[in-house]
């Protein structure tokens, strides 16, 4: 039996890199996730927000062990205290750890939606699936359709249903809500919340951060392959003054309802990361120290942050 305060998934010092070949056919390593820490407890919804291309989906793939073959992983992943190696991943995948994939391309284009959502488990969970489809607002006729006949939002809801049908303890939902209307997105998030309240855990990777903050317990903010801040979700509801890292504050201010102000510049490319703090080139507060030294993780006001000047 899992205790409330026990850790379900522990990610410690995770790095992921890809082997690539440059123009001279020289082999090189491109590190896309570096020194990442994340802890997920049963009963929790952890939202993962942050920059596009910051490695959020790769984290999902690393947890499930479905990275492409040219990727190498270092660091520690523990599931219920057991080391999550490729053998355990294979065992747990789809039964205990479920993925809601980001791309609607993950649907088999030649398979009707109903059997596809049922999966390989026998007996087929048809009854349960119909219930979940109905609660997500998917018509009964949808099960007879092929993926190309669905709208973006419908395909998304089918992907979400696959995780809800499975009896997984850990659900990794990679951007489950784009294309859904506001009420559907809220409903899908409510269902994830309900799963967590039953004692399961959800990692919710999302850009709809304004919606996610209302349902998550904690929020991890990613930037250029690592977490810059992990904070209680309430802090994000309160506003920038409650947040610790300048990037989290910038995210908050860029929301259409909060000013819609972009900051200058772009996330550094994985092949040419800055030497010091990854956010220093775009940070209004950056000093020389930030440009040469990597800030360590600090505990501030009940959150974890990588910034020398966090308050």
């Amino acid at each position, binding site marked *: 039996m899992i205790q409330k305060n026990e850790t379900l998934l522990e990610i410690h010092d995770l790095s992921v890199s890809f082997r690539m070949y440059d123009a001279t056919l020289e082999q090189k390593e491109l590190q896309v996730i570096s020194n990442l820490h994340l802890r997920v407890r049963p009963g929790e919804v952890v939202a993962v927000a942050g920059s596009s291309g910051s490695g959020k989906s790769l984290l999902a793939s690393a947890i499930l062990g479905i990275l492409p073959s040219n990727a190498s992983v270092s660091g520690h992943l523990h599931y219920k205290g057991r080391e999550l190696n490729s053998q355990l991943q294979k065992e747990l995948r789809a039964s205990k750890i479920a993925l809601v994939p980001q791309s609607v391309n993950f649907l088999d284009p030649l398979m009707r939606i109903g059997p596809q959502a049922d999966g390989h488990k026998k007996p087929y969970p048809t009854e349960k699936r119909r219930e979940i489809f109905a609660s997500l607002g998917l018509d009964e006729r949808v099960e007879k359709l092929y993926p190309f006949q669905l709208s973006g939002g419908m395909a998304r809801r089918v992907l979400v249903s696959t995780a809800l049908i499975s009896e997984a303890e850990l659900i990794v939902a990679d951007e489950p809500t784009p294309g859904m*209307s506001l009420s559907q997105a809220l409903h899908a998030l409510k269902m994830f919340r309900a799963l967590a309240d039953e004692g399961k855990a959800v990692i919710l990777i999302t850009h709809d951060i304004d919606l996610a903050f209302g349902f998550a317990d904690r929020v991890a903010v990613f930037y250029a392959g690592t977490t810059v801040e992990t904070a209680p979700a309430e802090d994000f509801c309160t506003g920038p003054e409650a947040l610790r890292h300048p990037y989290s504050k910038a995210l908050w201010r860029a929301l259409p309802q909060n000013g819609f102000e972009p900051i200058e510049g772009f996330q550094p490319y994985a092949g040419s990361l800055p030497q010091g703090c990854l956010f220093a080139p775009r940070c209004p507060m950056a000093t020389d120290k930030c440009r040469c030294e990597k800030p360590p993780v600090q505990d501030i006001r009940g959150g974890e942050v990588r910034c020398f000047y966090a308050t």
Partner: protein
Amino acid sequence: MPLEAKNLSFRYERGLPLVLENIDFKIEAGEVLALFAPSGYGKTTLAKLLAGYLRPCSGEILLNGAPLPEKGVCPVQLISQHPEKAINPRWRLKKVLEESGELREDMLSAFGIEKAWLERFPRELSGGELQRFCVARALLSGAEYLICDEISTMLDVITQAQIWSVVLSEARKRNMGIIAVTHNMHLARRIAHRVFDLEKREYI
């Protein structure tokens, strides 16, 4: 140069119900119109009709009073909701951009497109990175109207704000019209002059 949908109706196959029925609206050059409707209502279908990917069963689409040209680059360009499905997977990204005209340095830097990405294949980039190529490709083609079908839902909010600011400033410069399909009312209110609710057939 107004773009008009006149009494537009569409069904995918004979015998199937109509997806869209008698849709009417008009947008002027330089205007930004946001389209709002529930999921599965037919927003993407409408976007494909307006950009000439589908033909209406009845009604017509008029650009400056004439139907869309049959040949050449369509002056109404669609940017799709799923960038990973809108890019030839076997082309390097440089070729993807060059298809619609000469590369413009300012455009690449405005979208934060790294030089190194140009030599990569689509599957090596994230969804948000690919979407910037799709937007740049549409702008490079010299379009008069852009149909933006949920183009920023897969982006983080900072990149979303950046991309919209480039698109809107380019639109002002060229007096380009934009139809933006979105579920995010906050975003719609920020970017659009008018918001049209397809279901209720009214401006809100």
